[in-house]
């Protein structure tokens, strides 16, 4: 009898030890997910993926709430409100990397695990960033697609959002160096800003088509520059003659793909981004996602690469005439 007692005691001690070791492993957790802005197709798609993952895991309670305008002030206010209720994880798509940092640091100090997705904060203000696509991946995909559609020696132009927009600047830098390396004959004629206005993108592209009669391809590297450039090429009657390649949502670009102006739309899948973010949150609480880990097992997405403090969604997605109708973001 006493032997059984000892064994039980040992068993209890061992299991306590393991419980301690694994911390929150498998325990139900609450994840607060804050998008940049609520109610737009892109983040609705993220939300859908996040809900799917939470349902699949079964032990994640997901709270999804964000500002109705892309305001960092409101995001900070929400994060500080959550300090009172102390969820296990806060996942934010940041409207401003610096302005949001103090609030995120407060959350970290309060013992909340903070991750970012879609748009990062300063690195010391969060544990991991779920990165939808590296700058290299996007830049390479853009240039490779252009080489395929307009030829590796085509004279091309770029319509960007603004010269200070961080994403666009980084992409452009890498596009240029990749072009020089892989397609040395591809000529970059000009780079024009279009701010956040489709109308301006339409105008500058029309100007480009007039000024550079030999241009064979136009990159639109923001979600408004791309449809603006496509519209300009369509109106100039150069559909099929001048290739338009860029980044935007399939929903926006659908008409241009069907009219034959655009062959390929490049983006990542925001549904998968939301899905991966929840898996990262779960793994962070389970202790399977931590510094030095190289991979993350993420449900239907399989094994995902973890590089330093970033979880990578992987290569971008290509939307063409064949598959574009299946997506509603």
């Amino acid at each position: 009898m006493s032997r059984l007692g000892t064994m039980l005691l040992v068993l209890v001690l061992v299991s306590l030890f393991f419980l301690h070791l694994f911390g929150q492993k498998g325990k139900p957790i609450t994840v607060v997910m804050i998008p940049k802005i609520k109610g737009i197709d892109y983040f609705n798609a993220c939300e859908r993926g996040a809900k799917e993952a939470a349902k699949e895991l079964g032990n994640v309670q997901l709270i999804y709430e964000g500002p109705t305008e892309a305001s960092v002030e409101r995001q900070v206010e929400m994060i500080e409100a959550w300090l009172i209720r102390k969820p296990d994880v806060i996942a934010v798509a940041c409207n401003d990397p610096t302005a949001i940092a103090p609030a995120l640091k407060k959350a970290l100090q309060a013992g909340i695990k903070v991750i970012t997705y879609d748009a990062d904060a300063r690195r010391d203000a969060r544990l991991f960033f779920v990165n939808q696509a590296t700058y290299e991946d996007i830049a390479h995909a853009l240039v490779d697609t252009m080489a395929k559609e307009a030829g590796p020696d085509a004279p091309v132009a770029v319509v960007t959002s603004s010269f200070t927009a961080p994403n666009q600047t980084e992409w452009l830098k890498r596009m240029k160096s990749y072009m020089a390396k892989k397609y040395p004959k591809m000529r970059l004629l000009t780079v024009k800003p279009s701010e956040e206005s489709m109308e301006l993108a339409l105008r500058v592209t029309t100007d480009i088509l007039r000024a550079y009669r030999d241009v064979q391809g136009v990159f639109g590297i923001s979600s408004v520059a791309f449809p603006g450039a496509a519209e300009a090429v369509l109106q100039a009657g150069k559909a099929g003659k001048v290739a338009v390649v860029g980044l935007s949502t399939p929903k926006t670009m659908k008409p241009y793909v069907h009219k034959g102006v655009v062959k390929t739309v490049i983006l990542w899948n925001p549904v998968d981004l939301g899905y991966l973010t929840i898996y990262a949150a779960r793994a962070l609480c389970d202790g399977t996602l931590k510094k030095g880990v190289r991979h993350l097992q993420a449900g239907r997405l399989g094994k995902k690469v973890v590089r330093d403090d970033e979880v990578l969604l992987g290569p971008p997605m290509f939307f063409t005439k064949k598959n574009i109708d299946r997506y509603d973001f």
Partner: protein
Amino acid sequence: MVTRSLFLIIVWLLLVAFFSALTPGYLTVNNLLGMTRHLTEVGIMSIGMTLLLIAGTIDLSVASQLALASIVLGWTYRWGCPIELSIVLALMTGMTMGSLNGLFVAFLRFPAVVVTLATMALFRGLAMGLTGGAKVSGFPDGLIQFGQGQIFFIPYPLFLFGAIALLAGFALHRTVWGRYLFAIGAGETAARFSGVPVNGIRFSLFVLSGLCSGLASVVYVARFNTAKADAAMAAEMDVITAALLGGTPLTGGTGTLLGTIVGLLLLSSLRRGLDLMVVGTEQQAVIIGAILIVAVAAGQVSVSFRRLLPLKRGKEPEGVL
């Protein structure tokens, strides 16, 4: 007016009780004081706004002034000014913008809504144009500590707000200048004929409002460690809402700073409470809008009700309707 403020305080206490019952952690000193942090800039600007409204005028450009003042603060600091000088320059920028509004409204007699609607676009546009959307951060630790820190759970910016509120309260209720505001708001022509320097007082109000925006910009920069052109986007709505909730009518002539402060408390408690109950941001806007309508309607009803009674206490407050 005192009874109205009392009524609002009771409403606020009920609100806090309601949220405390539903949300653990709501009724803590930390939470109740911590949530004021998010309305400090709005609060500072709403003090200037209350004074303007009492005198029967309005400034829609306050949030744009904050943005442009923050840009001046940020860029002069980046160019090597000591932070104290940058702060003074931001305050001066605020007062300059206020003077511009004041010049048009007080001396050239343009309608305040039109002028400040125009300068709202102008100041914001200037801030955007000057910076091209770029931001400045990396401010000194002392400033950030001021924006982020607290003593006994009291956020530092709250002290600044308190000081401004006390000064304004004194000026409004204890000085001739303050009496003039009520006189102008109640009836400009009468005030003019009584020898009130209407133009000068109006001008001074806009300069003060600009100064409030400048001070608010310092708090903003300290709180977010960022100076940027889209700072405090559309915050003028919250500023005006707080003053209206507090019982200062758009038509002028009456109003208290206490009312505005309770209005601010109502707004911040509501927002924090609804955030914690995970009420969507869209629904929150509806709820706050509905409360504003009820608050204004309550004010109207009490005035109409008083009108039905035999007028024993002399004249009713003018310009409330």
